[in-house]
């Protein structure tokens, strides 16, 4: 089937098998590998992406169901190095260890803060209860979301998708992060 949709603010088109899961479309065809797969039962949330701003598990949707919609993956959150406040919060509060659940957690948190800019701890825990983390014990993830909520209330919500790119292009000065070589230790690992 032929589909066209938006991914991280860019229009994309593809011919796909009707049964192709959205997560496989993103990972295997678009090579957006930040979105992970941790279970077979839509339980773990590692594959969480935003569908028109709503957090969805991309292993529970066919790619054809995303036709005509806008998808945001973790790769769309920090165009030109400007971290989303939730990404900043995760870094600030040490809300990750192995990093496998992190993209899904970040996107689920963004969806929460979009609909509820000032959540209580219980509201955060409930909103993230579809996302499993095996490393952190969640306490720092909750703090990270609170940190981001505080920052976003002070500065306004961060745009995602196309909006993020427009905002980044409009922002003056050098990018805020991502310029140093923290990735160096694992650099060059692509199997190609």
């Amino acid at each position, binding site marked *: 089937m032929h589909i066209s949709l938006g991914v991280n603010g860019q229009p994309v088109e593809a011919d796909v*098998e009707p*049964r192709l899961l959205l997560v*496989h479309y993103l990972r*295997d065809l678009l090579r*957006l*590998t*930040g979105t*992970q*797969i*941790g*279970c*077979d*039962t839509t*339980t*773990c949330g590692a594959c969480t992406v935003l569908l028109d701003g709503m957090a969805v598990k991309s292993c529970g949707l066919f790619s054809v169901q995303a036709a005509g919609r806008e998808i945001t*993956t*973790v*790769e769309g*959150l*920090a165009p030109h190095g400007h*971290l989303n406040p939730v*990404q900043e919060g*995760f*870094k600030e509060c*040490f809300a*990750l*260890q*192995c*990093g*496998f*659940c*992190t*993209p899904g957690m*970040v996107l689920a948190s963004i969806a929460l803060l979009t609909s509820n800019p000032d959540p209580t701890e219980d509201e*955060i*825990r*409930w909103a*993230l*209860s*579809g*996302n*499993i*983390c*095996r*490393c952190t*014990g*969640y*306490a*720092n993830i*909750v703090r990270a979301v609170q940190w981001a909520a505080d920052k976003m209330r002070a500065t306004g919500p961060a745009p995602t998708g196309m909006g993020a790119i427009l905002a980044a292009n409009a922002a003056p000065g050098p990018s805020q992060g*991502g310029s*140093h070589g*923290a*990735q160096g*230790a*694992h650099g060059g*690992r*692509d*199997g*190609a």
Partner: protein
Amino acid sequence: MGAVMAPEAARKPGIGYSLPRREDDRFIRGQGTFVADVTAPRMAHMAVLRSPLARARIRSINAARAFTLPGVLVVITGELLARRNLAWMPTLSGDVQSVLAVDEVRFQGQEVACVVAEDPYTAHDALQLIEVDYEPLPALVDPTEALSPDAPLVRADKPDNRCYEWETGDLEATDHAFQEAAHVTTLDTYYPRCHPAPLECCACFADVDPDEGRARIYLTSQAPHAHRTILAQLMGLPEQQVQIISPDIGGAFGNKVPLYPGYVVTVVASFLLRRPVRWIEDRTGNLLSTGFARDYRMHGELALDAGGRMIGLRVRLLSDHGAFFADAQPSKFRAGLFHIVTGSYDIPVAHISATGVYTNKAPGGVAYRCSFRVTEASYLIERLVTTAAYELGIDPAELRRRNFILPDQFPYRSATGFSYDSGDYRAALDLALEKAGYEELRKEQEEGRRKGRLVGVGMSSFTEVAGAGPSKDYDLIGIKMFDSAELAIGPTGKAILKLGVQSQGQGHETTFAQIVAHELGISPADVIVHHGDTDNSPYGLGTFGSRSTPTGGAATAVVCRRLVDKAKKIAAYLMEVDDDDVAWEPGRFYLRSAEDREVTIQEAAAAAYTNPPDGMEPGLDAVSYYDPPQLTFPFGTYVAAVEVNPETGEWKVLKFVAVDDCGVRINPMIVDGQIMGGLTEGYAIAAMQRIDFDAQGASSGSNFEDYLVPTAWETPRFELHEMVTPCPHHPLGAKGVGESPTVGSPAAFVNAVVDALVHLGVRNIDMPLTSDKVWEAIEDSRPRKAAG
């Protein structure tokens, strides 16, 4: 070396500083590289066909229909592997394991065949078209029946279903102590089979060039060098031609220590097809077939004298290892480090005997976030001590205090032969009780009981054992359990550190840079850490059993000090003085007689390349292989307060206080993160993580809908406190921390729930404490109404 760092030094940037992790930046952007993210042109995809039955004879396998699907490249069966002598592989525990079943399947989920296809969907479609004719056989599920003469035989090569018999301690002296005892407390408990279930399942990417004999293999591996050696031997490839890359790993917790059939077949497939092949395990495969943990039936007896002093401990263990002995623990002791069962207590004599059996279940017994049976041992003694307190009418805290090993008894030789390095158990208990508000909690409990509220307080004063291990007793496939660090300081004074240990979320790229920074007096930003790639790191045994800091951390400190020794000669040469006239403090060499005359470490490094002294070999690099003189003994006390709903058996944690002493903390933020995560897994084991098997050997927990792991909603809040008793034999005073919380906390939760019900006569509920089991315990305790 040998000098333990002074406390003031601990506060300088370097060790003791909560440096933000340099790993985080790539992960929050989705730029990590996990094995499933690795791809290559012409890559093919593999899927695994698993047995639906726990025990059956394979009459035939017909894969002809699979080839009718366009895109199917090869179907690999046990028969095909057997022709190349690859149908069986060695385990890390000296047994063998079926790669793909040839004659018989021995557990549900066992690997039977693999399909490799152009895309993963086709590979999975083709699995459905493989016809396997099974003749079902009765399965051996209950380990207590394994040794009976009429039990089904799991393995023809193991004629009595017996995996091992093992014992330690002094049986005669222990029996004598029990004859002298004023009181004996007995506990029979089952530490249930559970699964580490890291969020990332196992995966392998193999790119084998048969002409060159070269294999590049990405593996979800906690022990890449050991896996290289085994794979090279198994596949008949020269070891120097095999590169194992363990890239970013999405959690492991012991699950990624064993070698798995999926890895072997992926490599074979790549060899056969002359193409890169990738296999990504699904969650069901992970939960059904990869390294299970625990599954220990424990009988413990504690002998006490009239004054409540422990005088002897006797333990009998029955361990269910599933169909293949693949627990991958590196000691010469079949029950791992279960010696630690005497715990924090001065018990003069003890005896442990263990029987391991085979059953028709997936291979089990891996160390799930613990150093090889330490979790089970710690659980048993902490449950026994608490039970004894109830029987003697002594407060559980008081009974512990009466029996602790005291600080002046260290080094302490335990009745099972372990040499504890250091500890202050009473201080940890007192701090935890104070922070928890123990007296108030007991009052709340008392008042609650009058109103029908069930409040319980439980504690666990655990002693952990980590850092395997001294070469005398610890090896993996014969390779001693040392670990390594290779350090090169370049002409500009920047350092490259390569490690034999490997991170699965522990943050080694940060903490090991801090160790180098601390030792050399340079910025952590000037240190890059490489690990996980066998072509780019010295041989090591990997990261498990909380061993990275005790072994790799020590190796890092030692190699730094070696380079400082060499740099000192260079500094003396530059200052034109004798070596003995030069002193070192991190960052600079200075003249003893004129302290402002100095050569910085960067200047010395530059001179090592540009102006070395006559006769000195140029360059500034070295490698250290550190064989730890002893194990390390982290300890602490955890206190849990819970409330049980008397109507439903549900329980919630009101308060949890953790006091951990893991010696010197390299990065306190990361240490706290490890503790937080470990407590969550301890809670999970105590509260929900259960995998049962029915009479046919079918698993009840093959996905995350059935095997419950805690989310943010269920996870309790934890309050953390620290003590620091430096390890006397570690160059940095560190002991390791990743597993203390998982080792120590399950007993605290169970002790708390039992404590809430103890006045009803409840003495034990086996984990996980699901609401139905707790409710049943309450119901059973109610006085029975007279019939009629």
